[in-house]
């Protein structure tokens, strides 16, 4: 089933087209990768989908509803969560609290309920904590439950941000370079984590430079170059695509 | 209302407006090189006037006392930057706001101890009766106000556009990091801009002291109004500060002419809030796009 349909999306900054007429679909239950040289427009694409930036033209449909123009926090409610290239954790909060903030849209306690500690507030809190602990275990950072995010090692911070994104119970998870700065072993375990998340029924789109990871986990790849989509297809075909090879050779050969 | 009376109000507006412009220039200067809004700017105004009175009372001749007042204010500005702001220079805006607010609190309160709590006045710079132009009387001191404002604007514009120091200053306002890499001594730039802002505030305080009395607690309100003027024009260049100051002065005096003097101060503040809410980049400022 088609979960997300990006259609003819474009965004210019000044005279520069950051994203230029990009279209693609994401099917439910799959892992899709978006790759491309630096400055190809990958992060801008994420910002456009999640409402952090508004496209000049084009549409983004989530299950048939156009979400362009929605505020980013509403996009989260609609079912799309994201992580950032530069992790945006709440440094002073513990890992558990970070994930609990991620559950914001899933909880109901308001100012009054929170201040008065009403019985059902407490019930909701207890359930939220259980769910948050589960998510921390799912991504594998359970040993840092009560550690402030600032004190958690780099690789684990990326995983924690994924757990926080998952806490909003998204249908679609957008990960912006989750493997950046991870060592080989950590990247391997990230791959397993992504499978686990997909098996929980969450569809994933990942922007990534680590080609090993991309080729391993993704079922389909979208290749961007200077804002335009230059190829789309399964990993084996993308690796042989002439346009893709040229785009990458233009930058750094090591990617292919 | 006849035209002479209207002219009289306009002149009063331009006179106050020039004072607002001088204070606004101080805000612009510090904001330009540091990105800080200096909540103690109004206290520099207060210190200029109070120190000049203080020196006159010590027996110094008026011109010397006036210059000494401005220089002493500059010294306080430099010391404040060096002692209180520099240690936390790289902190977020909240920290810097708190430091400048704390600074203004201390300057004001210390002034009360040193100069006393009563209103003080300074003799006019030039003796003589008001000059009558088209039926409107202009105090001689007003010409000092305008003259010094013009000198300050011309001087600052020259400094900004023609000197190496001015270019370094503008580079600082864009990025401290990049400026440092280009070999600009950002710490010195910041300190000098505080010193200059104190001079501007001090001049405004000194030159207005003969017209209205001054006291230890005048800083906060003139500070808000100077900021209103700065934001009205658009925080950025000296000309904008002057346009903002004169506009504010005129609006105020016209509101006295046509409405009442009761809400004169409120009008300036409401104007400030409106500009902040509707067009924070100011009348002359360019809209900047916020980047996520």
């Amino acid at each position: 089933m088609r979960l997300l349909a990006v259609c003819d999306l474009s965004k210019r900054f000044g005279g520069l087209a950051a994203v230029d007429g990009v279209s693609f679909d994401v099917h439910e239950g799959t892992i899709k990768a978006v790759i491309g040289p630096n400055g190809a427009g990958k992060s801008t694409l994420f910002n456009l989908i999640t409402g952090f930036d508004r496209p000049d033209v084009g549409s983004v449909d989530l299950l048939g509803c156009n979400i362009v123009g929605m505020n980013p926090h509403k996009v989260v409610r609609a079912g799309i969560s994201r992580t950032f290239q530069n992790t945006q954790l709440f440094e002073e909060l513990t890992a558990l609290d970070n994930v609990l903030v991620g559950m914001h849209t899933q909880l109901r306690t308001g100012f009054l309920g929170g201040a008065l500690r009403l019985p059902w507030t407490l019930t909701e809190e207890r359930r939220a904590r259980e769910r948050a602990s589960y998510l921390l275990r799912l991504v594998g950072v359970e040993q840092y439950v009560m550690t402030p995010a600032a004190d958690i090692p780099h690789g684990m911070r990326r995983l924690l941000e994924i757990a926080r994104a998952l806490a909003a119970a998204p249908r679609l998870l957008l990960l912006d370079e989750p493997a950046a700065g991870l060592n080989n072993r950590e990247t391997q375990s990230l791959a397993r984590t992504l499978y686990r998340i997909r098996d929980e029924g969450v569809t994933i789109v990942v922007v990534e430079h680590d080609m090993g990871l991309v080729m391993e986990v993704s079922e389909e790849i979208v290749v961007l170059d200077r804002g335009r989509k230059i190829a789309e297809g399964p990993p084996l075909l993308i690796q042989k695509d002439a346009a893709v090879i040229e785009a990458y050779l233009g930058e750094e050969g090591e990617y292919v | 209302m006849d035209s002479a009376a209207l002219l009289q109000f306009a002149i009063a507006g331009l006179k106050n407006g020039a004072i607002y412009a001088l204070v606004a220039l101080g805000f612009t200067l510090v904001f330009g090189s540091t990105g800080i809004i200096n909540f103690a700017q109004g206290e520099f105004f207060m210190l200029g006037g109070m120190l000049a009175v203080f020196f006159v009372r010590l027996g110094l001749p008026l011109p010397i006392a006036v210059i000494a007042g401005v220089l002493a204010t500059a010294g306080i500005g430099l010391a404040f930057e060096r002692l209180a702001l520099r240690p936390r220079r790289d902190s977020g805006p909240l920290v810097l706001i708190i430091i400048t607010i704390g600074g203004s609190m201390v300057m004001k309160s210390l002034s009360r101890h040193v100069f006393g709590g009563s209103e003080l006045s300074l003799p006019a710079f030039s003796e003589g009766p008001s000059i009558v132009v088209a039926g409107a009387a202009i105090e001689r001191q007003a010409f000092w106000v305008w003259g010094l404002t013009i000198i300050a604007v011309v001087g600052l514009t020259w400094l900004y556009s023609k000197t190496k120091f001015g270019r370094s200053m503008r580079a600082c306002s864009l990025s401290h990091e990049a400026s440092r890499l280009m070999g600009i001594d950002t710490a010195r730039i910041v300190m000098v801009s505080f010193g200059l802002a104190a001079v501007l505030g001090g001049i405004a305080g000194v030159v207005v002291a003969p017209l209205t009395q001054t006291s230890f607690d005048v800083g906060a309100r003139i500070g808000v109004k100077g900021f209103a003027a700065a934001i009205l024009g658009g925080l950025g260049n000296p000309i904008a500060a002057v346009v903002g100051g004169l506009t504010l002065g005129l609006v105020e005096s016209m509101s006295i002419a046509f409405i009442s003097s009761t809400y004169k101060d409120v009008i300036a503040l409401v104007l400030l809030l409106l500009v902040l809410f509707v067009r924070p980049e100011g009348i002359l400022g360019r809209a900047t796009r916020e980047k996520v």
Partner: protein
Amino acid sequence: MRWTRRRLGITLLGVMGIAIAAVPFLTDDRYLLKVLTFVGVNAIVVAGLALLFGYAGQISLGHAAFFGLGAYMSAYLTTTHQTPWLLAVLAGTGIAAAGGLLLALPSLRLKGHYLAMATLGFNEIMSVLFVELRGITGGNNGLSGIPFPSIGSFVIDTPAGIYLLVWGVAALAFLGAANLVRTRPGRAMRALHGSELGAVASGVDTTRLKVQVFALSAALAGLAGALYAHAVGFISPTQFSLEFSILLVAMVVVGGTGSLVGPFFAAVVLTLLQYVHALIPGLGNDVASVIQDWEVDISGMVMILTVIFLPGGFAALVRRKRIGVAVDGETV
């Protein structure tokens, strides 16, 4: 280990609560009780400001104005319209909340510096209005003869009674705030302070949240103001100046951001500074008057020194882990 620490904390709080509640039974010094009542009043404002500034990272230099709004509203209603006390206090709280909402809606789109200036401007506007709207506020003379708190025929007219009333409200304010920061809205506030981007990406409607916290803290300031008016019986415009707003912010800064206990103690200490002689009877009149005279200087210096040398405020000293990122942690 965590449990024993937590138990220790709760025990200490309990002892403190009992000590505060016991004061009127240990002394009948009317002046001392009045001073301690003022401490309680300020503590109520600080509870709200600690949420707004210390947790959500939004500055306000206008809380004295909300305090004044609450005080004038309640005083005006009870003196000229014979409104029942409870209704008047609620109206005072309500008008402050409404004022907060009105100011917050446009202001909170503004960042740090501008927000500070906008709230400062608001405080100055209200200062002028408190003087000029003579029909309601009594101008520079203020309003006097404000009745004691009463419900029906039950009148609280003793210093001890008013003390207990104010401190009861203060205790509720702090309990509520402490609960709040540990549940969904409070976590969202702390998140906002930590990373606004991250908060938005977690589905937090940051604008709405900022407005809510601002209105809540304004309401608490209004409530405190209303209680104050009935506790002293007389109010005048000078009591709601910008200086008071700054002093309130200083209490939160010195006490520590991201803490409630810190600002509470700072509120106690900085308020008592104004009334040292009431506290230490042995203190010579000269010493007391010198301290009172220099109170603003002391508060200002303490605030600057705290920000420079102890960025997390005094609460960070007590916290065992990591000295707080403090006011720096906000996003720009």
